[in-house]
């Protein structure tokens, strides 16, 4: 039997990431933990955008739903972190399912605008209920409550391993999904929705599942962000957090499972570097978007895949 090259590659990446904590200095280890959480967010986004071909401009809302789902249950209901984390995922998945059911009635440009509008309405709603959400200012989750089964999530090493664990699970699930029958149908919908319908598949449940699944990823990332870094705020629901996963995916490679990780690492450090040089560091985001869409539509790994007989999933 031939060895499963793709699975081995992904396991190797996961192992290499784990080993990074022994190699990297503390500062970069902290950065990598943050990158892994954001990459988890983008890995889910990739299933929707990269594999299903649906460009959402509103995923910040699901990230924030995960964040507030975890943060609010801990703050107001005194839930332990172990229960708050899945609460965030459930909140985001349900919200994504509801918004997806509405937004998927539209296609193309209208889908992008509808998702953008819902996310904006969500962002404004968080601001409106300032009394509970603390608006843009946000609130801090008490450090003592940020522990799971005795592990202190605010500890640097624990935090890294937790972020790594969430990313690894997300990566392997994404790999399994895109290689499954469902993943094939999603790609078929991306390539030609009409023809997929003709082949006897109803695209709607598949598209809705893709929205909900990407929402679950966003929720997991948002909840993890709240638990690992302790801050919850409305700014995470702003348009910038909808653009970031799109940018990560575009740079790393749309429709490549490992793409978002590569994109997240590159963009994170580009922004970090630009931040030292100028206050207008977000210009990096703008320039990267324009250059990518003009000259490198396939992203880093997308271009690489064309030279590897396409076995890279």
């Amino acid at each position: 039997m031939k060895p499963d090259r793709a699975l081995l590659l992904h396991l190797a990446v996961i192992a290499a990431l784990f080993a990074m904590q022994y190699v990297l200095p503390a500062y970069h280890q902290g950065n990598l933990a943050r990158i892994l959480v954001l990459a988890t967010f983008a890995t889910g986004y990739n299933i929707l955008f990269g594999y299903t071909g649906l460009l959402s401009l509103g995923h910040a809302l699901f990230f924030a739903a995960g964040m507030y789902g975890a943060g609010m249950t801990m703050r107001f209901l005194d839930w332990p972190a172990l229960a708050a984390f899945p609460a965030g995922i459930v909140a985001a998945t349900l919200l994504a399912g509801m918004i997806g059911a509405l937004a998927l009635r539209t296609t193309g440009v209208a889908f992008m605008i509808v998702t953008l509008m819902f996310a904006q309405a969500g962002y404004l709603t968080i601001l409106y209920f300032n009394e509970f959400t603390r608006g843009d200012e946000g609130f801090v989750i008490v450090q003592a409550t940020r522990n799971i089964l005795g592990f202190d999530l605010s500890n640097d090493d624990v935090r890294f391993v937790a972020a790594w664990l969430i990313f690894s699970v997300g990566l392997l699930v994404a790999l399994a999904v895109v290689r499954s029958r469902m993943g094939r149908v999603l790609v078929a919908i991306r390539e030609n929705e009409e023809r997929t319908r003709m082949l006897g598949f109803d695209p709607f449940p598949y598209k809705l599942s893709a929205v909900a699944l990407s929402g679950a990823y966003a929720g997991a990332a948002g909840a993890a962000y709240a638990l690992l870094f302790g801050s919850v705020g409305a700014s995470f629901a702003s348009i910038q957090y909808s653009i970031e996963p799109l940018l990560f995916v575009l740079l790393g490679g749309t429709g490549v499972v490992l793409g978002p990780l590569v994109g997240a690492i590159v963009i994170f450090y580009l922004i970090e570097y630009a931040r030292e040089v100028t206050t207008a560091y977000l210009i990096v985001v703008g320039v990267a978007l324009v250059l990518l869409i003009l000259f490198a539509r396939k992203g880093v790994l997308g271009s690489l895949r064309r030279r590897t007989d396409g076995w890279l999933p």
Partner: protein
Amino acid sequence: MDFGPQLFLASLDGMVTAAVLALTALGLSLVFGVMRVVNVAHGEFFMLGAVIAWFVASNIGGHAAIGFIAALIIAPLVVGAIAAAADWIVLKRLDYEPEATIVATIGLLYILQQGALVTFGPVAQAVEPPFNKRIEIPWFEGANVGWGLFTTSYKLFVIGATIAILIGVWLLLSRTKIGLVMRATQLDRETAQAFGIPVEKVYALTFGFGAALAALAAVLIVPIQQADYLMGGDPLLLSFIVVIIGGLGSLRGTLVAALIIGMSDGIISVFFTPTLAKIIATLAVAMVLVFRPQGLFGAKAQ
């Protein structure tokens, strides 16, 4: 204050909002109608208009009116040129493919906004209005006359100027060769090209013109609102709302919707909070797109 006078004042402020919104949204609607391009950077062209107005007004001495009139001419021209260049350099190469152009205009949004942060700075700047006479409004119900119930001549000027500009745009589109060419391109790009219309140039011109309208709106409002590098968000959001409720690409629908959204935004903001007004509007838009994609006033898709 009584409910009546307060409603009257809110309506008047709503009219000013509606006027500026109508111009801004008209630009967005025109670009979408002719080019089928959703310009996410539209709000930044608005911001650029305000920022350039400040630069012009603060560099030209003399009476405030001189700087204002100069800004009224220079800002739309400069912004229009920047937009046309962006179209020529970026959007044209993407063949105006919807997803790619949206991503590109998001990129443009960040470039323009952060560019303004570098050149203009993070601090909001005020521009002096050319005239700003306090106009008392006699209120016949009596009791509260004399305190608070006033508007300014500049606000009335904004409303008047907007009506004049709208008539001008309408004449341009319906009575001139440029308008004819734009409408022809909108109806059928291929046929227009076959008849020798330089479609690419028409696109650049339309994109520039749409942005110039946003800049013009910004010059009008900046003496009331101040220039700030982050000010592009609200006009973008409201223009989107207006263009969608009015029906994508329908200019008449855009104007009606601008009036409704501007007025209700003004009134709800006064009696409740601006945030609530925007939540209602954004949700309304999402619902309109989902359940009535041609907009409330738009005709069925051709």
